[in-house]
């Protein structure tokens, strides 16, 4: 919980960008967009679980 999750998301972002770029060069444009979409979905799932934990702690702490 901390810096490594930020680095993880940054790595996934850079990776999807590179993969999309490579696929674009080799002419498979649509697979590139699919790869970018997949990367985005993975990151969204991670971010959602993180926000879920945050809301959980706030709910218990401020006794909502």
């Amino acid at each position: 919980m901390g810096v490594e999750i930020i680095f993880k998301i940054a790595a996934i972002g850079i990776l999807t960008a590179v993969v999309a770029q490579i696929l674009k060069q080799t002419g498979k444009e649509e697979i590139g967009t699919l790869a970018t979409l997949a990367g985005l979905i993975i990151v969204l799932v991670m971010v959602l679980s993180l926000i879920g934990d945050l809301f959980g702690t706030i709910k218990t702490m401020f006794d909502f």
Partner: protein
Amino acid sequence: MELIFKIIGIGMITCIAALILKPVRADFAMLISLVGGVVILVMILSTITNAISLINSIAERTGVNGELLSLVFKIIGVGYLTEFSASICADAGSAGLGDKMLLGGKIVIMVMAIPIITSIMNIVLELLPS
């Protein structure tokens, strides 16, 4: 004391990561700043818990109405979350949406504060020599 260094460090790292990714993938940059905000908030929450327990113990000793106090904490929570999400929206470029969330948060807080206002009115009315 070293908590502040951790917060500043994570804030800086998040800014730089978001900056790197902004030209390449703008949506990832926004997600990174969001995650950085969440991480900092989680760190701050742990220090707020003992502040809240201190306030609770003081409230019991002074006989303040516990129910009102928990309402005050709920309002603080609402303000906390609204400001967090509004700044994320403003950061992502949709400042109008952030302002609307702030407006919504203010209204929710006003509605939650109605019992406090009524109890104050009752106390004031008792004081007045009717």
